């Protein structure tokens, strides 16, 4: 693949006797949105955690250091007792951004949280809290953004707003890699899907390619379930 901003080669990870990842390789190009889907325990979060530098792999290589990758964890990693602006300011300082206030203003504008800038995060809705969470992941203006189950706790309206925002980032050239349980969401928003099962990458391609591989299924979710069944998962 040309213009790949992120490349992982043969990444493996064990937890005791269990193989969480078995030689997984992937790429993400500029402006591409890549979805990682799979059943529970497939290794999605482990894969993203390794790319984000939270965990160390037992084997394999990564093209980017964790510092060059933006990371948005599944649960909002923000301080409830601080305001939105204070959270952004804190992490901007820790990221050693040159003009902290300008970065904070930009992220407040980008996430549409200007009106809530002085509100404590603990008073925000789940959707707004997730927006702060994503904003912190974007403070360093990373070329690659990782999102672990970004819409898990959001209602449909909040989800749609979130995806609008993420699509905007991709259009601006950011490579986005996200994990999700919601295969319909992956079909709608991802330009490419990776299917993980039992730590193994068993499919890589477009949603329509996966449907075609299964045959005459009614929708992508059914096709995905049938695909897993056929592969013995």
């Amino acid at each position, binding site marked *: 693949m040309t213009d790949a901003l992120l490349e992982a080669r043969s990444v493996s990870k064990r937890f005791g006797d269990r193989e969480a990842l078995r030689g997984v390789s992937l790429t993400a190009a500029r402006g591409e949105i890549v979805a990682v889907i799979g059943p529970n325990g497939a290794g999605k979060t482990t894969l993203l*955690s390794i790319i*984000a*530098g*939270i965990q160390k792999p037992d084997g394999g290589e990564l093209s980017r250091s*964790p*510092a060059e990758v933006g*990371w948005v*964890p599944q*649960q*909002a*990693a*923000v*301080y*409830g007792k601080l305001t939105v602006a204070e959270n952004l300011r804190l*992490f901007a300082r*820790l*990221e050693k951004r040159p003009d902290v206030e300008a970065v904070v203003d930009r992220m407040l504008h980008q996430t549409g949280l200007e009106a809530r800038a002085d509100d404590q995060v603990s008073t925000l809705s789940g959707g707004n809290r997730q927006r702060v969470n994503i904003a*912190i992941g974007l403070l360093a203006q990373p070329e690659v953004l990782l999102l672990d189950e970004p819409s898990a706790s959001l209602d449909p309206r909040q989800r749609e707003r979130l995806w609008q925002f993420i699509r905007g980032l991709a259009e601006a050239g950011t490579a986005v890699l996200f994990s999700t349980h919601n295969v319909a969401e992956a079909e709608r928003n991802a330009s490419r899907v990776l299917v993980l099962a039992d730590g193994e990458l068993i499919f890589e391609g477009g949603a329509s390619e996966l449907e075609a591989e299964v045959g005459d299924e009614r929708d992508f979710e059914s096709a995905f379930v049938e695909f897993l069944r056929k592969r013995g998962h």
Partner: protein
Amino acid sequence: MRWLLVKDLQILKRSPLLVALLVIYPVVIAVLIGLALSRGPDKPRVAFVNEVPTAANVIQLGGENIDTSKYGKLLFNSIEPVRVDSEEEAIAKVKSGDVLGALVLPSDLTQKLASGIEPAHVKVYYNAEDPVKARFVQDTINSQVQKANAAVRKKLTKIALGYLHLIVQGGQFSFFGRHFDVLGLAKAEAILRVTLKQIPKNTAASAQVAAVQQFAKIARDNLDLSDNVLKTVGEPIVVDQHVLRGGKTPLDAFAVAVAVTVSLMFVTLLLAAGTLALEREENAFARLVRGLVSRTGLLAEKGLLAAGAAFVVTLAMLAGLALFIDLAWDRFPLWMVALAAGALGFAAMGVAIGAITREVRAASLMAFMLSLPIAFLALVPSGSVSQGLYDVTSAISAVFPFKPTLDALNAALNDAGGLGKALVHLALLVLGYGLLARVSLRRFA
């Protein structure tokens, strides 16, 4: 209801740390309380040296034979005597902490008691590294000596009354082997009355007047002697106290050191453990340590925050207490050194607790549950429990910062000595707990 109970039991089963704390904590507290009750300070172990020859145990006071060993038995009702052969052996036992104190009865004890003229002295040795213990030893020995004094006082009062009776009524009196016929005031008055009537000089009457003169002399001498007797009646046995180790810290100043150390412990432990656990509870830990802050840096930040806050709070507390209790302000720089070192020791322990636990509540609970027993153990004085048990409590206390912090603060406040040793001890604990916290953070993150 039943299924809720099953669910809660399953959760408890999957929380081994909490269950361990819930089980171990009451057991430890129960053992400590049990020890306190069974080996309490009502029967302290005291080394006992009796240099009085067996034959001299019975003395004569006021014409009565008194067995002094009976008073020794009274003393043994209140202490557990550890009989030793010499004063040196007794001192060694006190120094080693095997006994709470030592009581030495010198060989001339009964002889002095029998004379009724000067007080008999007993010697008491103890360590005063802990003023509570020092006060306890003083109170215990003093109360026992007072009992003996009260018993002897009865006898000496009888002697004093005998002298007074002799002066008034007359009779036989022996003093250092010399025998006197004491005329007595009553007879003297009668003689004088007769003599006044038969006044011719150079007759038998002149001899009677001479007798009156002799009586006057002896009466004056006896009255002089009565002064000493009355002093002796006031305190027949005097305790000579010897402090073998430790300073002479006033009890209220020591209480200040304990109160400040306890406050320092709670504030620092809870703050350090809580703030570190909060990073994980807020899910921010992973975000921070993926390049923004090193794990060691995070630990140092939490430790310094807790230590700094506790330092300010306890310094203010100390300054406030100094308004009511006489503390040496010229030692203020040493107060700060001791508080800072203690705060760092507790902070290192606090971050270790915060690194082991995952939640603020668990961290706070663990910090609180650890604090009380370590403070309790650190205050167990030597000699109040058996040597083996004291060694165990000392070893346990040595791995927690409470005891060295208390020692440092006591030394800083009261010039009790040992500040340098306590500071080195705290420095080692900071390193040890810092290492434990760092390893735990890697293990549990």
